[in-house]
């Protein structure tokens, strides 16, 4: 029983790990490009930087979403609920951010 759970945990960890690496990589590339563009005084530099920061912020959020899906698949009620709770809080953050601009 615990061995199976360990396996599932390991798989989830691997998936999350790859997601994180991907997110960071994309974000880093965008930020580097945006920084270079900024130094060269390209007008597009702002947008590129914004995308980079956006991807950076999206990475942990996606992390939580992926965990949610995985726990739901494993029919792990307690941790599905926990992950969902976190996602709700993050939803609150995004709402507050949206409100700050509008």
């Amino acid at each position, binding site marked *: 029983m*615990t061995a199976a759970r*360990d396996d599932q*945990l*390991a798989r*989830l*960890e*691997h998936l*999350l*790990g*790859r997601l*994180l*690496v991907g*997110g*960071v990589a994309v*974000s*880093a590339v965008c*930020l*580097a490009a*945006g*920084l270079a563009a*900024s130094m060269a005084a390209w007008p597009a530099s*702002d947008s590129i*930087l*914004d995308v*980079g*920061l956006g991807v*950076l*912020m999206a*990475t*942990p*959020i996606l*992390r*939580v979403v992926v*965990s949610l899906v995985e726990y739901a698949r494993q029919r792990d009620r*307690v*941790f599905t609920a*926990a*992950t969902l*709770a*976190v996602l709700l*809080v*993050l939803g*609150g*953050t*995004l709402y*507050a*951010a*949206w409100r*700050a*601009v509008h």
Partner: protein
Amino acid sequence: MAAGATAGCLGALLGIGGGVFLVPFLNLVVGLPFLSAAGISLMTVIATSSAVSARTAGRQLINLRLGMVLEIATSAGGLAGGITVARLSDRALHVLFAVATAGVSGIMLTRLDRRNVILDRAVDPGPLGGRYFEAESGGDVTYRVRRLPVALFASFLAGSLSSLLGIGGGILKVPVLNAWCGVPMRAAAATSAFMIGVTAVAAAPIYYARGNIVPELAAAAVLGVLAGSRAGFRIGEGVRARGLKLLMALVLAGVSLSYLLR
């Protein structure tokens, strides 16, 4: 950028976001307003967290379940802090932070040699405990989690402080996990490193929307931190748990002093 690299290095070593160094640097040395420093630092926290936990993933050091449960409290604290930070006085925050880090440093120092690992493989870790291989102990180590309510409360505090001050909050989470909740140092560091990214993103979008973040500086800091954390991770492989705890306690003491003196 160099500051980002140092912060990232230390962050990867200790399982904290490194924001505790970056914020004072941006605020005092570079002269940015506190909110800008905090906002940029939160971005680097996300970067460190993602980078470090991407690398520790797969070794079962990150206690995903415990982390997620605690994250409910932490991110709630982060959201609360993100909303209220614009209304609090700098001085109040500094003093609060100095006191908290001094206290935690003290706790860590008095518990330097306590070991939380149970070496018997047959012991059931319970729903929130974990098991992983540690070369230092010569085999798989198992641990159970104790005092969850304390951890939840501390996590909420950590989350609030995180968003108020622009730090990862791991600086409180790791000692709490380690000293009060029975989680061994490496697992605590890894779990915390994983968690702080989520906590930071509970507040970062709000900073971003308020226009606190200077994109070019944020980009430079993040890239610096990513480079630094690669270095820090390599160094961390050979360090023993006691050394990690001592380093952490000393770092906290230094941080506390620097804020008290402001």
